[in-house]
């Protein structure tokens, strides 16, 4: 063993036998050697075929190295899957989440787990060149696990209506399907503009968007649906509440007295919460259901959501 001028077991490590210290040293040395090997291995893995690579900035401002021609991609969010299809590159997707059910073709693509807990092994198994993720938190879980794999992780953070056309064009660049993507982006922009041109009520209707009936989850300041309602000619009564999707106090819901209630359509959200039974919206019959997927996925179908909301908010109270 090393001669340190003293023996480790003289340092007062009472009860520790000479043999166990030696074993400890061997263990440490092996661990150190192992980690060096891993480090060397990583350095090697970073030198792939350089010629056909290019660099693009993702939504976190990271420079991501991508192949010139992306042929195999994985999407880790239903909204991103819809975006990729809209940008004309749906045939390039080799893995999607179990929630990715639109368009119909997405249902036949290999499932790699869900958005919250994707299966890393399943992702590696489909050999993607690019993994498209929607949030920074997802990235953290992946970056380390996928280091050394040749897949690039690209963050596509779509914050709302205003980002959709731009990200469609970006996807067109990634997948070299620029023309299709440009058409989709222009169509999206035209539909948004058309809603804006339509005549609307002088005073925006006061809207409560209810996500679940019993618990009264709703939309807050940070939700893109708040902006969607404004563009559709309404005004979210919960627009000032901090957070994206807060649980609203029933007392406040009652006091807010919304004129229109939009129910995000799901099995636990078939009617307004009991606290709203005497609200202006319920009394005048202005309670509407809207497909939860088009409302909640920041993708190309936000145009559908906007058009539907605008049409609903233009309707006159039926009265009763």
């Amino acid at each position: 063993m090393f001669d340190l001028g003293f023996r480790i077991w003289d340092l007062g490590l009472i009860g520790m036998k000479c043999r166990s210290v030696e074993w400890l040293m061997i263990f440490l040395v092996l661990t150190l050697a192992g980690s060096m090997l891993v480090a060397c291995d990583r350095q090697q893995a970073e030198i792939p075929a350089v010629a056909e690579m290019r660099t693009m900035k993702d939504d976190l401002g990271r420079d991501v190295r991508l192949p010139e021609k992306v042929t195999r991609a994985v999407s880790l969010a239903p909204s991103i899957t819809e975006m990729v299809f809209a940008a004309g590159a749906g045939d390039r997707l080799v893995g999607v989440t179990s929630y990715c059910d639109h368009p119909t073709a997405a249902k036949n693509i290999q499932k790699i787990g869900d958005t919250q807990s994707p299966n890393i092994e399943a992702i590696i198994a489909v050999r993607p060149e690019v993994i498209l993720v929607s949030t920074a938190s997802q990235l953290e879980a992946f970056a380390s696990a996928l280091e050394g794999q040749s897949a690039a992780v690209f963050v596509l953070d779509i914050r709302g209506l205003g980002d959709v056309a731009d990200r469609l064009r970006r996807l067109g660049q990634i997948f070299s399907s620029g023309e299709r993507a440009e058409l989709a982006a222009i169509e999206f922009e035209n539909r948004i503009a058309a809603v804006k041109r339509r005549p609307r009520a002088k005073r925006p209707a006061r809207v409560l968007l209810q996500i679940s009936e019993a618990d009264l989850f709703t939309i807050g300041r940070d939700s893109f649906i708040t902006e969607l309602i404004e563009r559709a000619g309404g005004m979210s009564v919960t627009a000032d509440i901090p957070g994206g999707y807060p649980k609203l106090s029933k007392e406040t819901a009652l006091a807010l007295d919304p004129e229109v209630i939009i129910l995000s359509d799901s099995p636990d959200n078939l009617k307004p919460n009991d606290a709203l039974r005497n609200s202006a919206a319920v009394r005048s019959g202005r309670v509407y259901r809207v497909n939860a997927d088009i409302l909640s996925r920041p993708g190309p179908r936000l145009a559908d959501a906007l058009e539907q909301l605008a049409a609903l908010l233009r309707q006159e109270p039926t009265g009763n």
Partner: protein
Amino acid sequence: MKRANYIFLLLIAGLAAALVAAMLLGSERVSVFEMTEQGRAILFDIRIPRVLLGACVGASLALAGASLQALLRNPLAEPYLLGVSNGAALGTLLAFVLLGDVAGARPVMAFAGAAIATFAVYQMAKSRAGMNVERLVLSGVIITTFLSSIIVLLTSLLDAARLRGYTFWLLGDLSQATYNGFYLTLAAAAAGTIVLSSQARALNLMMIGERDAFDHGVEVGRVRIIIFGAASVLVGTSVAASGSVGYVGLIVPHIVRLVVGSDNRLVVPMSAIAGAIFVVLADTVARTAIAPRELPVGAITALIGAPLFIFLLRRN
């Protein structure tokens, strides 16, 4: 008994004050003097049933905790530790998944879950040499973790939209209070107070030792079944109404014992009142701290309960 009477009066006055304060505070201001129609709806349809339900849940959980601790002669005995709460939670979850909105399904299934969990723990703990307390607590831990894993499994299979509210509920949440839920927990808490108080003398003797209690004419087996049964009903109705509000059954009887000693004739009924005060105040914080958003009351009781418990442990 004179000092005890004062403490009783003090507790009842404290409960009254807590109830009034809780009814005056909320995410919306309601003026009692100029009552609008809206104010009346907020107060009577939403706030008051919630405050009253909170009081009954607190009383029920503290009662169950106090009597289980005395019965098992273990200060850690608590509905959670013994798996009773998780049994009730699993029962409620099953009612939710299988039966949907069938009236009364949740409390009945919660009681069934609590009773089955209690029975399982009891059977596991029994050995040829009688029931020993370490075995019982260990069995409780095993049943608790086993039931937790089933709950996690079931919730992973549920679809995300239906789960959202359920995770809130699992932490203990009073926001879905109704008068019907209140009446049911009130009935359970009142019956529980009477039944458990009637066993207080027997519990006192059993705390000395089960052999001694037996020699004094206590039917030990029968007392056990009464306590386990009553605790199952109390925890079942509470969990069905408000999920798993933690630490109440642990912390409240401890504090009561610090003040009045270990005579169960005092500890059991006083715990009920003190538990009611604790949950009513904790829920007032949950309702107002980040209004108009809400916190689950279980987060508040744990936030207060855990450090308090550590403090008490170190003091003793």
